[in-house]
């Protein structure tokens, strides 16, 4: 394991390689549903990749497979050159619905992952304090999740994941539940964190602007069964900043991707209606 | 962390200690023979009074034997207790003896009388109907009769009495189980039409009115050996000496129960055991109004054989036995000889 003292540079972990992955849901009764169909995707080390697609296209499924939560049915996934066998602290995940432990306070939630890393006590405390400060939750250390607003919970969830300093960060629509203002602040915050210590990030979202803003590349997926429709480079000269986000090329890129997503959303909508 | 703290530091050790307490088994037997005697209703069973007797009556208590009264309802569990070696003597009816021998295939011996019903000059369980509606036995056709337990002596008496009219249970009348204390209210609230009222309920009923006396156990079955102490033959043989000591003391106890000089003390003891005021018992218990208790606890073999034959004839019992093979009077006799010499 690498040093956990933030904000340390993470050594290279190697990228993620997804090869011919298919996934089928088999309900107890009823027909099986193909969620992912032959996904091939290479993600470079310390690359920020966003996955876009209509709801139900299997984005989350792909993320769960990357997390190792569900058994791989077909194909292969390797992270840093090694095939994944299950969940592990090398891949931190932020869930859409926060997934905080409701019986633990903010501090205890963040501490939990550090305890699992068997870190010395004072280091755990220090790291926790650092991350609470970083997500601006000082003063709420001893609050339970039920006492926090949605944005605060989300920040706890992100802090909790970042605290264990994973090589790879998997994020499942992490800002989906936030108001526009908090959302924009969190996006900035995430970019800042990432710039300070870049890790490989797989970021699932349905917000095109967010994807273009944050990611190096955007993967657009088709409606169910999910396939890779197109991969678009969204790196801009000089990195991302508020200026570029208002520039013509940025907005054009957003529009371009919007059209792709819209096509699929219509397919998904008509399939749903039929 | 309050919840975690509570769980790990307080709750779990507490529960573990409690769990450990269960596993601690009862300590092994001491020197004297422990005689565990089953009983169900006091003062019909005098067993629970034994441990409350004044000093000096049970002279050998704690030396050669100790007594542990065990309350078990019904002869079924009592026989199981005897079979499993969990109790040593059961205070049981003749029906239980016959079924224990024939059905449970236990080698049983009767060693002492506890109570006899319908004996000349003594009380007997009485059956009452509601006054006004039922005047003679024939009026009970198609009615509901309450008994304390199916297959009991009371049940047998009902079958005997109606058998004389050629009636059969189920066809001409129905029998239901009602506990003794609920008999009178069940009768008053018209839930049953005929019910046995043991003392003191018959006395209460007479005072309040509204019920009519129909017949008693003596009319139905004659004199009966109602309850006796029954145990396993091998156990009795093995602990014979201790049992003789116990019986000798017990004969002294019976004298004390019936002695007018100790009346107050007896009533107080009974009141303590049953948690009922002594005045409830003063007028009848351990007198001629009460059932008969043989002073030397001797069983009347002929009477018992007649009971068995009657019950077989009535169909209450399916099998018969020669009771003399299942009675061991020698213990009570030896004890009586020692006390009365």
């Amino acid at each position, binding site marked *: 394991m690498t040093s956990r003292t933030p904000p340390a540079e993470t050594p290279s972990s190697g990228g993620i390689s997804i090869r011919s992955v298919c996934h089928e849901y088999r309900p107890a009764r009823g027909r099986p549903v193909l969620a992912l169909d032959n996904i091939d995707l290479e993600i470079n080390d310390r690359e920020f990749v966003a996955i876009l697609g209509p709801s139900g296209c299997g984005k989350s499924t792909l993320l769960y497979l990357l997390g190792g939560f569900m058994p791989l049915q077909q194909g292969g996934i390797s992270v840093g050159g090694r095939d994944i066998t299950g*969940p592990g602290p090398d891949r931190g995940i932020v869930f859409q619905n926060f*997934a905080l432990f409701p019986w633990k306070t903010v501090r205890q939630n963040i501490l939990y992952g550090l305890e*699992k890393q068997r870190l010395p006590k004072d280091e755990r405390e220090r790291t926790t304090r650092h991350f609470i400060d970083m997500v601006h939750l000082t003063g709420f250390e001893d609050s339970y*999740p039920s006492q926090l607003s949605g944005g605060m919970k989300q920040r706890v969830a992100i802090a909790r994941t970042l605290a264990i300093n994973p090589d790879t960060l998997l994020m499942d629509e992490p800002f989906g539940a936030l108001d526009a203002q908090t959302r924009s602040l969190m996006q900035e915050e995430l970019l800042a964190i990432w710039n300070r210590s870049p890790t490989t990030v797989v970021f699932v979202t349905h917000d095109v602007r967010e994807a273009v803003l944050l990611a190096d590349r955007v993967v657009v997926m088709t409606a169910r069964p999910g396939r890779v429709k197109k991969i678009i480079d969204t790196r801009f000269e000089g990195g991302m900043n508020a200026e570029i986000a208002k520039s013509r090329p940025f907005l054009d890129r957003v529009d371009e991707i919007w059209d792709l997503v819209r096509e699929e959303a219509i397919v998904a909508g008509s399939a749903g209606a039929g | 962390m309050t*919840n975690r703290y509570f769980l790990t530091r307080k709750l779990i050790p507490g529960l573990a200690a409690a769990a450990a307490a269960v596993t601690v088994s*009862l300590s092994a037997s001491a020197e004297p023979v422990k005689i565990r005697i089953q009983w169900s*209703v006091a003062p019909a069973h005098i067993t629970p009074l034994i441990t409350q007797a004044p000093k000096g009556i049970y002279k050998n208590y704690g030396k050669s034997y100790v007594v542990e009264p065990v309350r078990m309802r019904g002869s079924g569990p009592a026989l199981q207790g005897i079979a499993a070696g969990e*109790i040593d003597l059961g205070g049981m009816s003749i029906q239980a003896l016959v079924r224990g021998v024939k059905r449970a295939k236990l080698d049983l011996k009767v060693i002492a009388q506890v109570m006899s019903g319908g004996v000349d000059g003594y009380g007997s369980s009485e059956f009452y109907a509601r006054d006004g509606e039922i005047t003679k036995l024939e009026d009970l056709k198609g009615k509901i009769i309450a008994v304390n337990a199916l297959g009991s002596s009371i049940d047998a008496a009902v079958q005997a009495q109606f058998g004389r009219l050629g009636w059969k249970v189920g066809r001409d009348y129905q029998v239901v189980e009602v506990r003794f204390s609920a008999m009178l209210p069940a009768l008053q609230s018209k839930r049953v039409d005929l019910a046995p009222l043991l003392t003191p309920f018959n006395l209460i009923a007479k005072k309040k009115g509204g019920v009519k006396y129909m017949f008693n156990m003596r009319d139905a079955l004659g004199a009966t050996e109602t309850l006796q102490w029954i145990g396993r033959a091998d156990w009795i043989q093995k602990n014979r000496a201790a049992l003789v000591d116990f019986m000798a003391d017990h004969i002294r106890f019976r004298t004390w129960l019936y002695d007018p000089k100790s009346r107050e003390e007896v009533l107080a003891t009974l009141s303590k055991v049953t*948690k009922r005021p002594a005045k409830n018992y003063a007028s009848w218990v351990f007198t001629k109004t009460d059932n008969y208790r043989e002073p030397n606890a001797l069983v009347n073999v002929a009477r018992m054989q007649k009971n068995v034959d009657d019950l077989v004839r009535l169909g209450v019992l399916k099998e018969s036995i020669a009771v003399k093979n299942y009675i061991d009077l020698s213990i009570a006799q030896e004890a009586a000889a020692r006390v009365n010499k």
Partner: protein
Amino acid sequence: MRLVHTLWRFTPLLLLAVVWEAVSRLGLVSEFALPPFSDVVTAFSRLADEGLWEHTAQSLYRGATGFACAVIVGVLAGVLMAWYRPVHILVNPLLRCLYPMPKSALIPLTIMWIGLGDNSKITLIFIGCLLPVVLSAFNAARGVDQVLIWSARSMGAREREVLWEVVVPAAMPEILSGIRISLALAFILLVSGELIIANNGIGYLIDILGEGGDYAGMFAGVVTISTIGFFADQGYVALTRRILAWRE
């Protein structure tokens, strides 16, 4: 103010007592079956001097022991059944057969193996209280949000750690409500267990009083144990609220 509040809370019980007294005094039901409440109070004060508390203590010891074992074993069994399928497959049929069995029907078996002492009654209470705990622990553990488990695992928690640090706490609210049912059952079972075979205990007392026709005394026993059960339940609810402070 607090006192007034408490009194107001318990007013329905007072109303119940008044209705009880009236029903009995007006002869709507035989006083043998339901003696007036005032007689029950009198009988209670009499019994309090005659060993009511010793009998109650004896019963509570049995009840507490059986209940405590049921909680420990029940939570363990329920969670393990939800977690390890083989445990579920092997244990479940047994529970299904045992659950709807009147525990008193098992007396022939307990006489044989456990005898007649305290342990037989404790065992019956244990079995009776066990099943609601198992059921609630199983259902609760099964219903734990998968995402919580995943997030613990992604932070490096091992399987056993996930079980005790995530599944059990997450299932705690439902487990605690299952335990509440068992707590109430324990009071019922400690009485009914003693009705058939016992030398002491509140159930024994209730039974011999009833057998002797002292219905007022019998009801005094029933009311005593119900009242203790009431306070145990209230205490338990307060305790639950503390344990689950994180919910609100």
